[in-house]
Each structure stands twice: as structure tokens, then as C-alpha cells.
């Protein structure tokens, strides 16, 4: 009797991949290569230093916008404090392309009913975008006027259903030394990640804004892509960039600059011409772009000119003490 021994490589007919599946796979592969190329292309462009922003659809919100002259896009996108990419004002524009912002997710935790990891799209999907032209006053005594595109912070936070114990909201920037060369620096004194926080009533104020774009397009990486905070009545460092965590807290969180130099930077950091930074005066600011021989000086306004909307938040507080 002939005993047929199947060699180890032999397969029964039942295991053969049907022709249709085989062909589909080929199609899939071609598609995959095409989409990989498409994905890589912006990366290649980025490596070349060109901006990779895309246009956004939004409505204008004149009720929240100043009609002051806007700071040109070039200045907004090339003059940044984003120490994750270096301490020079030009460093973020040079190196922020090393950060990948797609896909992006935000971890929500703490005192709320809907914690979890949200894909950026899911966090933003239910909301319409609006454009608000805000003043931005840096603690270093310069300022800009920037048309942001985004959603009110309050609408996003409400959907996460903070509970009654949530007295503060805390934010963190991405911490990834591989993508952020400033975090690799040997002599950086910042304890990464960058942390910021607001009191709940500040966060729910109508001016608090989550920006995803500026000048009608998605944020350039150096401006805090893909999602950042904008609190226009506070010094710029409160407006944390590239947010990866939102946490609701009962206690006031420690924030990065407060941890680093508590005598110079407080938790509140409200723009206040009466309270000087220990190293310089806050009475005036240079509105950028500034002139070469004659700086574009202007008087700094209380709460950066947003007194009407926010002064009530601090009634009875000694702002020289809670700076």
C-alpha cells in the first residue's frame, strides 16, 4: 500500500487563499503605499521647513474680538516662547516640526463624570469653531494681537462633566524628549512636562478659549499645535501649548513657572501693570512688531484690557499677593 507522506511545506487545498482575497490584498497594498506616501509627504515638507497648516471653517466672533491691528502671521509664527524646543525666540519655529501632532489624544481624568482618553477629533467634534482676535501679553513685556480659531474652553469642559469637587482644572503639555529637543537639554531647570492650571470659574469664563488654529488655519507646531489654551487676561505662559492632559482637581495645582521661580511667577499671573516682575517693570509693553530705533511702547492695561469680563473673578483678592 502506498502511504503518501506530505512534505512539511505541503498545504491542504482548504488553506489556499481564495483568489479574490489575494487580489484584494494587492489592492490594499497599493492603497497602503499611496496613503503612506501621502502621510509622509507633509513630513517631508515639514522637514523642509515649510508650514503644514490646513485651512479651517469657522465663524467670526466680533463680540470677543479687538479691532486693533493684528500682528503679522510671520511674527506670530516665528517669535515664540516654547521652551520644549529651545529658549531662543526663533528655536520653536526651527525645531517644532520634529513634533508629530497627528494622531493626537488628550487624557481626561480627575473629578469628572467622563474621564478617558479622547482622540482630538472626538474632543472637538460636537463644536463649531469661531475666530477671536485677542491681545496676548507676554510676561516679558511684549505683546501681540492674534486671530485664534477654536472653541470656548467652557463648552469642552462642560461636556466632560466636572463634578462638585472640581475646583481647579489642570493641563499638561506633551512630554517627549525624542520629539522635543528642549526637554533633552542637560541644563534645563524645568521639571517637564510643562504644567498649567486655572481656577474652575476662570476656566468657565467666556474668554477662556481652546485654540486649534490661527489666521484661519490649523496651528503651526511652534504655536502649540494641535490644541492649546488661550487666556487673554493672563500672561502668555498661562496659555499652555500642545495639551495632552486635562485634569479636574479639588486642590490648586502647582504650575511650571510657579515651581521654578515662585517669587517671580504666581499661579494667577493676571496681567497687572501695578505689580512688577522682580526683574523688570510691567507698566508698559512693546507691541510687536516693534521698531528698530523706537520701540512700539504702549501702556499695559489691567487684565490686559479685559477688566470688564474678568475683574469680578478676583473681587476682594489682593492681587499684589496673588500675582
Amino acid at each position: 500500500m502506498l502511504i503518501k507522506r506530505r512534505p512539511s511545506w505541503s498545504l491542504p487545498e482548504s488553506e489556499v487563499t481564495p483568489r479574490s482575497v489575494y487580489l484584494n490584498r494587492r489592492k490594499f497594498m497599493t492603497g497602503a503605499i499611496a496613503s503612506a506616501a501621502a502621510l509622509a509627504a507633509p513630513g517631508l515638507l515639514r522637514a523642509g521647513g515649510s508650514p503644514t497648516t490646513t485651512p479651517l471653517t469657522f465663524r467670526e466672533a466680533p463680540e470677543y474680538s479687538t479691532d486693533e491691528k493684528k500682528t503679522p502671521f510671520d511674527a506670530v509664527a516665528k517669535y515664540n516662547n516654547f521652551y520644549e524646543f529651545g529658549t531662543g525666540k526663533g528655536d520653536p519655529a526651527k525645531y517644532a516640526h520634529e513634533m508629530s501632532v497627528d494622531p493626537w489624544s488628550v487624557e481626561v481624568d480627575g473629578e469628572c463624570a467622563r474621564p478617558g482618553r479622547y482622540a482630538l477629533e472626538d474632543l472637538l467634534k460636537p463644536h463649531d469653531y469661531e475666530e477671536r482676535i485677542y491681545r496676548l501679553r507676554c510676561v516679558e513685556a511684549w505683546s501681540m494681537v492674534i486671530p485664534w480659531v477654536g472653541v470656548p474652553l467652557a463648552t469642552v469642559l462642560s461636556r466632560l462633566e466636572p463634578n462638585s469637587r472640581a475646583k481647579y482644572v489642570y493641563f499638561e503639555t506633551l512630554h517627549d524628549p525624542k520629539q522635543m529637543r528642549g526637554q533633552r537639554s542637560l541644563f534645563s531647570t524645568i521639571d517637564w512636562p510643562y504644567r498649567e492650571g486655572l481656577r474652575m470659574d476662570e476656566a468657565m469664563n467666556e474668554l477662556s478659549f481652546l485654540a486649534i488654529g490661527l489666521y484661519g488655519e490649523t496651528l503651526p507646531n511652534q504655536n502649540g499645535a494641535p490644541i492649546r489654551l488661550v487666556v487673554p487676561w493672563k500672561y502668555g505662559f498661562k496659555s499652555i501649548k500642545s495639551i495632552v492632559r486635562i485634569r479636574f482637581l479639588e486642590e490648586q495645582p502647582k504650575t511650571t513657572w510657579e515651581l521654578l521661580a515662585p517669587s517671580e511667577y504666581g499661579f494667577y499671573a493676571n496681567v497687572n501693570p501695578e505689580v512688577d516682575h522682580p526683574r523688570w517693570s510691567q507698566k508698559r509693553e512693546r507691541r510687536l512688531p516693534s521698531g528698530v530705533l523706537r520701540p512700539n511702547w504702549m501702556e499695559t492695561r489691567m487684565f490686559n484690557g479685559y477688566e470688564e469680563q474678568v475683574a469680578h473673578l478676583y473681587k476682594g483678592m489682593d492681587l499684589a499677593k496673588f500675582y
Partner: protein
Amino acid sequence: MLPAAERMVSSVVAKVIVFCVALMPLIWLVTDVVLGRIGPDPGQEITERLGIAAFQLLLVTLLITPLKKMTGWPGWLRHRRMLGLFAFFYAVLHVFAFLQLILGWGDLWATFTRRPYIALGAVAFLLMIPLALTSTKAMMKRMGRRWKPVHRLIYLSAVFAWLHFLWQARSDVTEMVVYGLLLLALLFIRAYWFGVSSLVPLRKSRA
């Protein structure tokens, strides 16, 4: 050409080269301003770059003596005065830029008394003034043995300038550490060769 004349020509050429190199930071700065590459906050950028140039030239000036000692060629000394004066030149521009472009000539007294980092910078600058004034050959002759101890004030000025720089760091001090190590090396090598007392300004050197 006579050997003496040849030496003179080559010394003049060397001086012109050093002059041009020392002028480079200013040329770059002016070029950037003229071409609009200085960024949206020119006052800050100009002031910072002039300050850095002053400090760099101070360090180069301090490098001359070690170079002379290590190479055994005294010719290095011929360039020391010009380098020191360039450091002073940039310091003057830096101070002027700060007053004009950042401070706007207001709050002068408060600025210098209440902001220690500016006070430190002011001390570093003030210490350079007598050195610049007594840098001429005639003054060297007139001061004789007193010249050297007076000019050791440059060590103090450099240390104050570095502290002034360090104090402005907001978080990342890499640049300050690098400059600090360079300054430390320049001072240390003098202490090693000539004794710690050689670093003390205004102390009469033993003849």
C-alpha cells in the same frame, strides 16, 4: 625690504585682520537690521547680541596672556589693547541699546537699584571705564608699576558680566554654563601659573 620694515607691515596686516574680525558682530547685526532679519522685537535682539559680543571679546582679551605663555610668542600682546577696547565698545553700545530700546530712559534709578541683574551689569560696565581710559601707551608709561594691578579689574568685570548674564536665564542655563566654564578656565590657568594673588585687582605686584 628690510626685515624691520617687513615685520612692521605684517604687524599692521595682522592688526587690520583682528580689527575686522572684532567688528564682525556689529556688521552682522547691522546687516540683519537692514535686511529686516532681526525679528519682530528688534530692541531686545539688538541689546542681547551687543551684550554677548562684549562678553565674547572680554573672553578673547583674557585669552591673550595664556596664548603668549603657551606659544612663547610675545606678538599676541600687540592685539590685547584693541580687543579690550572692542569689548568696551560693544559694552557701550549694549548699555546704550538697553537704555534707548528697552528702558526708554525712564525709571533709571529704580531700574539700577531694584533690579540686581542690571546693577551687576552696570558694575561690570563701570569697571571697564577706567581700563579703557588708561589703555593708551602714554597712560601705561605714566602709571608704570601701578598699571597692571589696576587692569586686573578686568577679571572682576568679567565675573560681574557673567553673573549679569546668568541672572537673566529663565530656565535653560546651557549657554551660561558654557561661557562660565570658559571664564573659569581662563582665570584658573592664571592662578595656576602666577598664583591666586595675580588675580587680585589693585594689589601692587612685587617688582
